[in-house]
């Protein structure tokens, strides 16, 4: 048995990791809530963002945190363009087609990165990567703490954008009633693409938070994508708050199952939760919509 402190530390560190998971899931759930599509390219897009952060650091010497100012707009553009030019036209709004087109995009992105960067694992070296903060007897990783704080801020920001801005209102209108929104003059295709873009910005932020302590290779998105799907399903498809809570929960579960089952089985707990939730309650634990 482990001491209370070790378990507590595992839970807290898990919650902190869960923050970044939540950010990844936030983008996914937003796209689902508005476009009603399951974006299989989400993991590959995260990999793209992580490579962008890495490139900004390795080629231009930009700090990973600062890189979000460059990577954010780039990812927005990538997401906007992908929805507007590829997913929308190619799928003709048929659900099955959308699923397959995003799968196709995932395959293209992932393997284009593989062709360009080979399968080597790359890291970013910063002088703060290993900093820890001690709270009482507990040691918490500083970059993760930063990540957690930024996630909370991003969730709040997203909530504000959705509820207090014109584009946010348009997004919610389209999410609720597409035809009605079109009738009152909302450019639905533009709103779709903007939503997709915002989802990608979430990934850019997640990438810049991850890179100081994590690594990137072309296949890394796969590790995140199922976790993100789990969170989204757990939190209720399309629910922003659900994504945050689901992310934290999954972070803690993963951390604890790694502690007790070892690293190789650590993700098993997540997948099993995912399957059980899908089978038992596919509307999620925390219901609400965007």
């Amino acid at each position, binding site marked *: 048995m482990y001491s209370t402190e070790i378990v507590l530390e595992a839970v807290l560190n898990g919650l902190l990791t869960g923050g970044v998971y939540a950010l990844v899931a936030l983008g996914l759930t937003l796209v689902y809530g508005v476009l009603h*599509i*399951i974006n299989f390219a989400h993991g590959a897009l995260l990999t793209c963002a992580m490579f962008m952060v890495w490139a900004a650091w390795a080629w231009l010497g930009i700090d990973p945190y600062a890189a979000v100012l460059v990577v954010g707009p780039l990812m927005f553009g990538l997401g906007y363009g992908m929805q507007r030019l*590829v997913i929308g*036209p*190619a*799928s003709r709004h048929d*659900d*099955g*087609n959308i*699923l*397959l*087109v995003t*799968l*196709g*995009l*995932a*395959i*293209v992105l*992932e*393997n*284009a*990165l*593989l*062709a360009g960067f*080979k*399968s080597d694992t790359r890291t970013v070296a910063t002088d703060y990567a290993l900093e820890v903060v001690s709270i009482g007897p507990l040691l918490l990783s500083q970059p993760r703490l930063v990540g957690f704080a930024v996630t909370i801020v991003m969730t709040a920001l997203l909530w504000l954008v959705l509820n207090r801005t014109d584009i946010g209102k348009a997004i919610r209108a389209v999410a609720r009633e597409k035809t009605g929104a079109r009738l009152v003059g909302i450019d639905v295709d533009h709103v779709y693409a903007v939503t997709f873009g915002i989802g990608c910005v979430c990934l850019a932020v997640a990438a810049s938070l991850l890179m100081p302590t994590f690594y990137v290779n*072309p296949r890394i998105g*796969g590790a995140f994508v*199922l976790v993100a*799907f*789990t969170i989204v*399903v757990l939190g209720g498809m399309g629910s922003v708050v659900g994504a945050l809570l689901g992310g934290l929960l999954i972070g803690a579960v993963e951390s604890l199952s790694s502690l007790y089952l*070892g690293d*190789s*089985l650590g*993700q*098993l707990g997540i*997948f*099993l939760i*995912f*399957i059980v939730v*899908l*089978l*038992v309650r*596919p509307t999620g634990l925390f219901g609400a919509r965007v």
Partner: protein
Amino acid sequence: MTATDLLRPLLVVAVFAVVPWLGVSNATLNFLVYMLIVALAAQGWNILGGFGGQYSFGHAAFFGTGAYATAILQVQLGVNAWVGLVCGVAAGVAVGLFVGFLSFRSGLRGSYFALVTLAFAEVFRVVANAAGFTGGAAGLLIRLEPGVATLQFADRRITCMLVLGFVGLGLVISTWLTRSRFGAHLIAVRENEQAAEALGVDPMRVKLGAIALSAALTALAGCLYAQYFLFIDATIAYGPWISVEALLAPLVGGAGTVFGPLIGALALHGLGEATKGIAGSVPGIDLVVFGVVLILVIAFLPGGLMGGLARLAGRLRTIARGRRPAVEA
């Protein structure tokens, strides 16, 4: 199903059967065997996904179970390879029924069904990677021992014939689906489950039948893979690559058609080899092409290559009759 229904599948198999004996290189034989194994896995996917309309993103669960069952039985228990093959298929069917029963009972379909199958495959991968009897992360090596009893052949042409035989079986099963009550029920459930039920079709039974048949063929492909390459590990057997291969080929070739999976596998892998020939062997470059082809087919060629061919044939017939081609709906 009548004898004439079987004419076309037999003809196609015959054409493929001639190729290995034309003095082709070992590399070509390798390509053929690999492509046919993929085609077989894809034929399995096509039964559930194409005819049944239930898109699985986790057929690796069946492929891997077939591969592992046959390998474990031979390596750990010294069982005969043919018995291993039969057990591998049976194990695949069992996994299929398990996954199917849970998912269909919960009413999962569309994207949700895709996600849950993907998750099941990942669970198998993680467990196979960690467990002892699967050889863990090191994988399993089947001893090289050519012979009829071990299902290993020094002459690759024989292997090619063997796999082709099973692909032929897949073609016959698919043809049967287009000419039988079970097939009609399966397609009816795909098109409109409620209407099918009103006509006396038990959707649960039909879907379970489809996933069992589907898992059987894909597990068979897994067994043959293990027996040909003589090595498997968790990433090979249960990795996402085979789930993707199994669904790409039918979608590109024509989902829900008899020849779609085979034509799709041939087209994709032919294109993959050609790309490698042009671009050199950059890792992942063939898959980039696969992804682009998938998107293009969905955008411009609904029904895949077979659908395109059917439309082309229809147009030619109308022109031959001296009329203007009908405007498409």
